[in-house]
């Protein structure tokens, strides 16, 4: 058995070695084109760059196409979610730059675009580095994300990132992020409270941006565990409450949740939190340092505020209780 195992291991090593050599030989000459979004699944999302090997700062056209994996046909009935067909989040993996960007920000979606399920927009990668693009789309009432990794310019090493202060500045604005529990615990709910000031005064003129007072993107510092955040409105809170209570009334709960979800999705977007504070509810899946980019539109002008959040593993005695100044609002508004 030991001999057989050794031969098996040797053969595996040789195959892996040859495959690695072939892959390296291929990579040395060309960037894979088009890039294939990961992970796989029933949909195939490809990304082509024009020019194919852009330099830092160079205007580059990013072209997406979405097809069914099995048939290769374009997905012609993409759903509009939060006013856009495909949401794209571009981040340098040193977390020095971030963009939340869409085809519709630059061009009208034509019938031809829909027929080909192909969307595009220009972008300048600000500096050399490793970039991760997460593209998110909805089809048949399900959402999907695909990610692409792109290296721009000379290869660089990704170092561990430093923690940011709990206060983030953009022009005259200062945003403060607090969490409950104070140290978020992996796998448990965390309440994040964002407070925004302009020149030291509380901001109360937040407007909707893409159907929400707040959009956020979160990654762990190794680029894993992407999440797309929104404000924790009373409607969302009510749905969560109902989900928590599911065992109380299993016969009617599903229908009620469905109805509320449809309302949430289909009704006109509604500004719930004009400022200065907004709640966000999130479950960080694993321990580690997370980079959080929060996007708001005070006075109708979009601003991005970066933060870091350190998440601890659960241990006996860890405080996982969640407190929020908005908790009392939920029962009143959820009906």
């Amino acid at each position: 058995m030991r001999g057989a195992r050794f031969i098996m291991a040797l053969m595996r090593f040789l195959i892996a070695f040859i495959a690695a050599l072939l892959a390296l030989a291929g990579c040395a000459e060309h960037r894979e084109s088009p890039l294939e979004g990961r992970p796989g699944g029933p949909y195939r999302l490809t990304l082509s760059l024009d020019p194919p090997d852009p330099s830092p700062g160079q205007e580059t056209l990013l072209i997406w196409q979405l097809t069914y994996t099995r048939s290769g046909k374009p997905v012609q009935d993409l759903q509009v979610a939060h006013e856009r067909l495909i949401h794209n989040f571009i981040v340098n993996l040193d977390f020095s730059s971030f963009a939340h960007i869409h085809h519709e920000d630059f061009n009208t979606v034509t019938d031809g675009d829909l027929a080909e399920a192909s969307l595009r927009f220009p972008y300048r990668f600000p500096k050399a580095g490793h970039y991760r693009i997460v593209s998110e789309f909805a089809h048949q009432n399900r959402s999907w994300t695909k990610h692409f990794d792109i290296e721009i310019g000379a290869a660089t090493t990704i170092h561990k990132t430093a923690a940011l202060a709990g206060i983030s500045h953009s022009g005259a604005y200062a945003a403060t992020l607090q969490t409950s529990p104070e140290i978020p615990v992996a796998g448990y709910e965390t309440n994040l409270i964002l407070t925004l000031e302009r020149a030291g005064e509380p901001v109360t003129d937040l407007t909707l941006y893409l159907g929400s007072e707040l959009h956020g993107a979160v990654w762990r510092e190794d680029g894993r565990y992407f999440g797309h955040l929104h404000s924790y409105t009373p409607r969302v809170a009510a749905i969560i409450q109902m989900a928590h209570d599911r065992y109380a009334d299993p016969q009617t709960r599903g229908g009620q949740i469905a109805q509320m979800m449809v309302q949430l999705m289909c009704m006109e977007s509604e500004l719930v939190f004009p400022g200065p504070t907004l709640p966000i509810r999130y479950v960080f899946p694993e321990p580690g340092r997370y980079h959080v980019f929060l996007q708001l539109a005070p006075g109708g002008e979009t601003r991005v505020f970066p933060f870091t959040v350190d998440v601890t593993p659960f241990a006996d005695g860890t405080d996982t209780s969640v407190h929020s100044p908005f908790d009392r609002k939920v029962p009143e508004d959820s009906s």
Partner: protein
Amino acid sequence: MKARLLACVVCTLAITASHAGHGLMNSFADVEWLPDPGVTPDQIAYLFDRIDERAELQFATSPDAEITLCLEFAREKLAETSAMIKALESEAASFAMRLYGDYVERVSAIVEGAPTSQAAERRLRFINALLEHVYIMSVDYLDMPLESRTRLSPLFATAMRHYEEQSARLPKGKKDAFFFKEEEIRWSLEMTQQADKQGITNW
């Protein structure tokens, strides 16, 4: 036309995932899909595949390593099951499903036998894997032929039974963190049933 019909079914169901992708319901949006099925149970070479799996498990260096292998093999069995159902190889599909059941049973035994200090992490890992299995197969279900896909029912039942058993042992805070995944799974399974009732497939 099929896609439109399917979309109609989806819209009329409990669309807990309709808010998906927006922080609330994208629990499985970036789930790693199944591997290539490789050698399948309808091939003679499958015997060697089985020997290889047994040998690897024999030499697993720790319970955690054994769980890793079992979950990896379970995903392979799902891929094989899917391929066999699409190839209308019902017996081979059932065989792959039985092996899937064996692997999750083995993980369950390891989790149950673990000391308290290690059981929680292993249980969470197992639970996540089970939910991902059901999610992937229920999505794939709509791309399978009508005449053979109903054979998947025991697989869903096996995975959900283990899920219910394990999640019942989670502390409340941990269990609550799974509720969106649970809801999406329930909805996803409901979709498979509705698609069967209405004879809808993307196949």
